[in-house]
């Protein structure tokens, strides 16, 4: 491991500055993170959600006590069909299934509202990929972070307003009586949440993904008017087929790139080089250092 250590003299009181061997490594120039949310915006959003959910009374009804698999386990189902009631892990996220028509007495109180919502990271991710969401809210208490980080790039590339709301999980999961709700997405043309979306969107700080913003700066991220005629989307959910959307419309993307004028080229900026110095991990078990003569 010919790590070229660049000795960094650590300013220490004791006379000889002990040089600490550090390994330099090329760091990721972009740091993709959620844009911070002001305090009163956060409260405002939480109140709206609580008020709205109380009105709708969307409840997660527990299935009867006998233990049977309430959901039909679909073959090749990519989605995680974890039984809702099991799992005491503090980090557990709901993957309620897209309820199909026959199973009426689902665990949810009313179905239409449930369809306008995407609850759970996987469902939000899938909906975002199919670009059906108008707004995405993510809870700040997620640990480790990489579970929801991919949502930043996803929503930015789909130009969907998204933001991280601290303590989202406690408030909303209590209402929906779920264990925890880490990600919440509102369908683009949902009727019942129309005014909520309108209210929240202006509060949502614009997302900044460095390499994405360069090319589409002039396109405003925030404004989304959900009042577009909510034409019922022809959404035939394959009864048991793969949920992933089969892209049927091939849209030539040349009109996409064609419209870009030269104006935005100047915004392309090369992020400066970031070098990270790391002290080698003493705990890491090394190959017998003894016989391999150091220098």
């Amino acid at each position, binding site marked *: 491991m010919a790590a070229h250590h660049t000795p960094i003299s650590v300013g220490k009181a004791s006379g000889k500055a002990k040089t600490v061997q550090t390994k330099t490594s090329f760091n990721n120039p972009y740091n993709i993170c959620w844009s911070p949310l002001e305090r009163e915006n956060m409260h405002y959003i939480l109140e709206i959600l609580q008020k709205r959910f109380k009105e709708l009374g969307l409840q997660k009804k527990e299935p009867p006590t006998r233990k049977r698999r309430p959901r039909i386990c679909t073959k090749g189902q990519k989605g995680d069909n974890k039984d809702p009631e099991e799992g005491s892990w503090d980090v557990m996220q709901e993957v309620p299934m897209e309820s199909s028509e026959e199973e009426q007495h689902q665990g949810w109180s009313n179905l239409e509202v449930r369809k306008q919502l995407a609850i759970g990271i996987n469902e939000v991710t899938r909906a975002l990929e199919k670009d059906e969401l108008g707004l995405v809210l993510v809870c700040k208490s997620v640990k480790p972070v990489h*579970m929801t980080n991919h949502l930043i790039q996803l929503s930015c590339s789909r130009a969907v307003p998204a933001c991280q709301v601290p303590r989202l999980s406690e408030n909303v999961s209590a209402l929906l009586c779920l264990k925890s709700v880490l990600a919440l997405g509102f369908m683009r043309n949902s009727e019942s949440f129309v005014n909520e979306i309108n209210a929240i969107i202006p509060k949502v700080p614009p997302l900044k993904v460095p390499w994405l913003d360069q090319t589409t700066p002039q396109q405003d991220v925030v404004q989304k008017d959900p009042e577009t005629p909510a034409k019922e989307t022809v959404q035939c959910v394959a009864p048991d087929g793969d949920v992933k959307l089969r892209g049927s419309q091939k849209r030539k993307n040349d009109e996409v790139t064609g419209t870009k004028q030269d104006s935005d080229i100047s915004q392309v900026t090369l992020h400066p080089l970031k070098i990270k110095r790391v002290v080698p991990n003493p705990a890491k078990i090394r190959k017998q250092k003894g016989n391999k003569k150091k220098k």
Partner: protein
Amino acid sequence: MATNVKDKDAYLRLNFLYQAAHCVLATNPENVELARFYCHTEKNISKRLVLRQDPSVKRTICKKCCSLLVPGVTATVRQRKCRQRQRKTVVRCLSCGKTKQFLNNPSYVLWGDRPESQPQYPQSQSKQVATQKPPVNSKTAR
């Protein structure tokens, strides 16, 4: 701050290539081969000149076909179940199907991200903290 790094030009080049790959992908999402080529070159350079890449960079490059893993364009991210208790995030590269798995273990912090890994961190504390070995689980992608 990286003034006296040994081969600064090579690092500059890695930096350029990484951002070029992103830029090409951003302007024309169809152009995955080109982004893949840039990441391939980047990987080659760092292998040949023995330059270390930070896990944050390595996690965005597919090991098998070294294409840029951008969730939503070239990769899909799902939370999957592994052993009863544990849950993991799976990043699946679309062009070659290779998956990268990260355990959702709240207490695990990459060594690089730890405070005591930074050189400026006063040496004294780093001794005790390091003794409590981070649970090194093999599944976590380096």
